[in-house]
Every structure is written in C-alpha cells, then in structure tokens.
C-alpha cells in the first residue's frame, strides 16, 4: 500500500516530466554556452539587468539634476568619468538610468506583443473558421514597413514613452501571430491532440496545456530578437522626439540632445550610441544562439 515513502504512479510521471524538462533546459544552456558570441551577449544583458535593477546604487549623481557650473565636461573628468552634458548632468548616471528605461520598455512592449500575438496565433491556427479573418488582419498590419506602424500609432495616441511601448507591442503582434500559427498548424494534426479531443478535453485546455508548450522554442527566439528591435526602435522614436521627452534619461533622446553639441562635446552623442549598440547586439547574438541551441536538427554533435 502507498505509504509516505513510495510515490504514486502520478507523482513518478510528474517527476519524469519535470526532469525531462530540466534536461532540455540544461542541454539548451550547454549548447548556448558553447557559442562565444552568445556568451558575450549574455554577459552584456546581465550587466544591463544589474545596472537597471540597482540603478540608484551605480549612478553617482541624480540623472536629471542640473549643475550648470560643470557643464560639458569631457570624458575622464574629475568625479564624472563619462563627462557631463550641456546642463551639467552626469553622463554615466544618465546611461545607468537609461539602461533601466530601455530594459523596461523592451520587456513591456515585447510582453504585450507576445500576449496579443500568441492569443491571435493560437486562435487562428486552431479554429479554422477564424483563421481567414485573423490572418487578413495580420496581413494588413504587415503592410506597414518597419517603424511606420509604430509611428502611426504614436500619431494617434500622442508622444510619450508609454505610447511607444503600446506602439511597439502592436507592431510585434503580426510576426508573433504568424510564428505561433505555423507551430499550431503542425502540432494540431498530431495524434496526441486528437486523443485529447476524443477524451473530451476542452479547446482551451488543449490550447494552453498541450499546444502552447510545444511552441515555446520559436516564441523564445522571437522574444529575444524582438527585445533588440524594441530597444532600437524606442531609441529611434525618442531620437525623433516621439518617445521619451526631456529631461528623461533615455539613450535615443540623449543622442538627439547631444547632436547640437557635436562640435564641442562629441561624447554626448558617442556614449549613448555605444550603449544602445552593445545592448541591441547582445540580444541579437543571444537570439541567434538560442535559435541554433533550440534547433533539434543540430543534435548531430551530441
């Protein structure tokens, strides 16, 4: 009889499933760590996360506090190792707080975009009747090149950082929906899904518990790559004056402001640009690495 020491068959099954999942994660991580560029990217992302979370600890000054007596100091100045801008604000502190903004905007817009894209993709892949309508809508969103859709949404909602998040998330929806739909279409024909159906499981249960977990790999890769696009686009929109407004310490807005002082203080333009490039590069290479690591066809060397 089952006493406290013996496991029921259900628990054994659950444990097995758990360990299989763990194995998968360990395997993916191992493969990812073999990729030197991806490791470099991971390190940069970790640094950004640490800076973002503990921004007040790393920033040496208040990022928006003006100090006109110390304006436009160069790199390596006393007490301001990255110099100061035209209002005497410490560039390093602004970069640190900018890391927080770019990470938050990235996570916010990618998260919202995934939510919308996954929902639309699951529904359109699974329910044939809704597929046509949803995909025509997705096609319509695809008709706007690159950043134009985000701009249209900002034109409608007004210029602010929150609206940038909304705009970029809507712009992420069509691609995500297509990726998820593709996975759903290939999964739903498999026997175990048909079996679940014949056992009387509800559509919602099948979608969330059985179909969705099988689309995780492409979703993870998409989300990582999308972080890069989101951070780059936020900076671009803020550069154009459509996103973060002064005096917010946002990297794109810093470049826009620094451009006026390019002759006297080029570091105001150079430094935030390097920050953006490093972070975007990091998410791109980790995304690339994840795609290879999660690809079952790459199993040959194992």
């Amino acid at each position, binding site marked *: 009889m089952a006493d406290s020491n013996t496991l029921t068959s259900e628990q054994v099954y659950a444990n097995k499933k758990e360990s299989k999942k763990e194995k998968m994660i360990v395997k993916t991580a191992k493969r990812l760590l073999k990729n030197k*560029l991806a490791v470099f990217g991971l390190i940069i992302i970790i640094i950004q996360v640490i800076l973002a979370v503990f921004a007040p600890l790393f920033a040496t000054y208040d990022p928006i506090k003006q100090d006109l007596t110390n304006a436009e100091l160069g790199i390596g100045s006393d007490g301001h190792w990255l110099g100061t801008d035209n209002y005497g604000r410490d560039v390093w502190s602004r970069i640190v707080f900018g890391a927080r903004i770019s990470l938050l905007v990235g996570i916010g817009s990618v998260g919202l975009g995934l939510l919308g894209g996954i929902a639309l993709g699951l529904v359109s892949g699974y329910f044939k009747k809704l597929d046509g309508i949803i995909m*025509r809508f997705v*096609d*319509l969103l695809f*008709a*706007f*090149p*690159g*950043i*134009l859709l985000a*701009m*249209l*949404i*900002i*034109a*409608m*909602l*007004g*210029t602010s950082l929150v609206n940038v998040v909304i705009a970029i998330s809507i712009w992420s929806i069509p691609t995500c929906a297509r990726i998820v739909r593709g996975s759903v279409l290939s999964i739903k024909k498999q026997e175990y899904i048909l079996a679940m159906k014949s056992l009387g499981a509800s559509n919602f249960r099948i979608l969330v518990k059985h179909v969705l977990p099988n689309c995780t790999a492409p979703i993870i890769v998409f989300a990582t790559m999308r972080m*890069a696009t989101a951070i*780059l686009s936020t*900076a*671009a929109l803020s*550069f*154009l*004056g*459509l996103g973060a407004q002064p005096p917010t310490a946002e990297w*794109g807005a810093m*470049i826009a402001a620094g*451009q006026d002082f*390019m*002759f006297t203080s*080029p570091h105001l*333009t*150079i430094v*935030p*640009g390097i920050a*953006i*490039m490093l972070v*975007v*590069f990091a998410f*791109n*290479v980790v995304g*690339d690495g994840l795609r290879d690591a999660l690809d079952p066809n790459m199993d040959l060397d194992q």
Partner: protein
Amino acid sequence: MLGLIGKRLLQLVFLLFGISFLVFMSMHLAPGDPATIIGGPTATESDLDAIRAELGLNNPILVQYLDYIRGVVQGDLGYSFQNNQSVSESIATRFPQTLNLAIASMVVAVLIGVPAGIISAIKQNSWFDVSSTTIALAGISIPNFWLGAMLILIFSVELQWLPVGGLNAPFWTIEGMKQLILPAITLGTASAAMIARMSRSAMLEVIRADYIRTARAKGVRKNVVVWVHALRNAMIPVITVIGLNFGFLLGGTIITEQVFAINGVGRLMIDAIAARDFPVVQGTVLLVATLFVIVNLLVDIIYAFIDPRISYD
C-alpha cells in the same frame, strides 16, 4: 502566370482599401478635435462649427471615409491643418528626395551585402567569414541615426570631405553624389547586413546540393561552379530579401532624413505627427504603405518568374 498576377492585383486592391481604412480610422479615433487645431485657441464655438461643416466632420464616419477615398483616387489627399497647403503637393515636392535616398541606399546595400555574403559562404569559417558575419550582426544592431551622426562627425566635421546635410543637388552631379554618400551608407548599412546574412546562408545551402557536387565531379572548374551554377540558384531567396528591404528602406528614410536634414516625405511626416496634423500624417503614411505593398507584389511576381517551382496556390 497571368492568373497569378491577376489574383495578386485583386488582393492588392483589397489590401489598399484595408490600409486606407486603418489609417483613416486611426486618425479619426485619435483624441483631439481637428476643428480646434485648425481654429487655434482664439476660435469661437461658431467658428469651430463652421470649420466642422466645411470639413464634413459632422457626417457619419463612413461617409467621411468614402469622401476621402474619392479624393485619394483623384490625387487629392486633403489639406494640412497647419498651413492649409495641399497634402498631395507637399508630398510631390518632397518625394523625389526620399526616393533618391532609398534607391541610393539600396545600391549601397546590394553592392556590399551580396558579395560579402557570397565570399563568406565560399570561404566558410575563414577569417573573412568570421569577421564579415560579426560585422553583419553589428550592422543590424547599430542605431542608424547614431551611425549617421558618427559619419557626420568623422567625414564632415573632422575631415570636412562631405557636407553635413541637405539633399538638393541632382544625384548625377558631383555635389549631389557628395550629399548622398553619407545618408545612403547610414540607411543602407542595416540592409547590407541583412542581405549579407541571407546571401551567405542561401549560398551555403546551394553549395552543399547534389548538382553542385555533380558539376564538380564531371570536371567543371570551381570558379565556374560557384559563379555560374550556384549563384543563380542562391540568388532566388536573396532577391526576396532585397525586395523586402526596399520597403524597409522606405520606412527607414524617415529617420535618416531627420539626421541629415533632408526635406523628404519622412520629415514631413515627423513634423506632422508632432503637430497632430492628421491629413498630412494620413497622406504620408498612406503613400509609404502603398509603395511598400506594391514593391512586395512586384517581388512576389519576379520570384515566381525566376523560379518556376514556386506556385502560390
């Protein structure tokens, strides 16, 4: 083939209606009353009513949309809220600069991207391959507005070789080319990187194909195999990427124009978004999106033409 083109054209018409409806609705659902924007702070209620009546803002929204479409078909995109200029005319005077920039960037992107990708693939894992794939990744990651600023800093401010901005001389003159170089590199870099990545992976796939091995085995020289047999087949997916990138470049001109103070459609759009000048936003967005879908349609057709294996059923 003709059936395919006909079907695509029909889809295009529906898509254009969809785009115009979406753009129109998003501008009309936007908060803010156009009448107050036009009338300004001093307008009285009766002034506002007069403006609303003149613009037809009291009509049902669907009627307003149909009126708008009727205008668009005749080339009338309405009038700016800010200065009452015809939107079609403003776009017409600025569009050549934008197109000029987009085409020049495309040329830069193809001239750099395609050879880099092919050489990378032929010499896989060589130092050239490693550095060019890394540079390509950096090229995708670099903010183009920042790249533009850096190019200005180096070539205009420090070396003083090229002008800081502006694009008014025709592109066939020396002055015009000088003005075009930096903006074209700025905008073309990301596309060059994407094209290089695509060319590399397409070429790698083709090189490993059986018929390439057969060609080598029967004694065709390596260069001939690469440049004649492999290249033609590898270029098929690359052409798609190039086509799609043209649309991407049209969107990208918006930012590049801002960096180099080029008076194109993009700057018109940005200024209009900031001023909430809805007819101008509507007109410019509609133009860019329409061009984008038309280019995509052409790519689809060319694709089916060069690769008879493709069928769109």
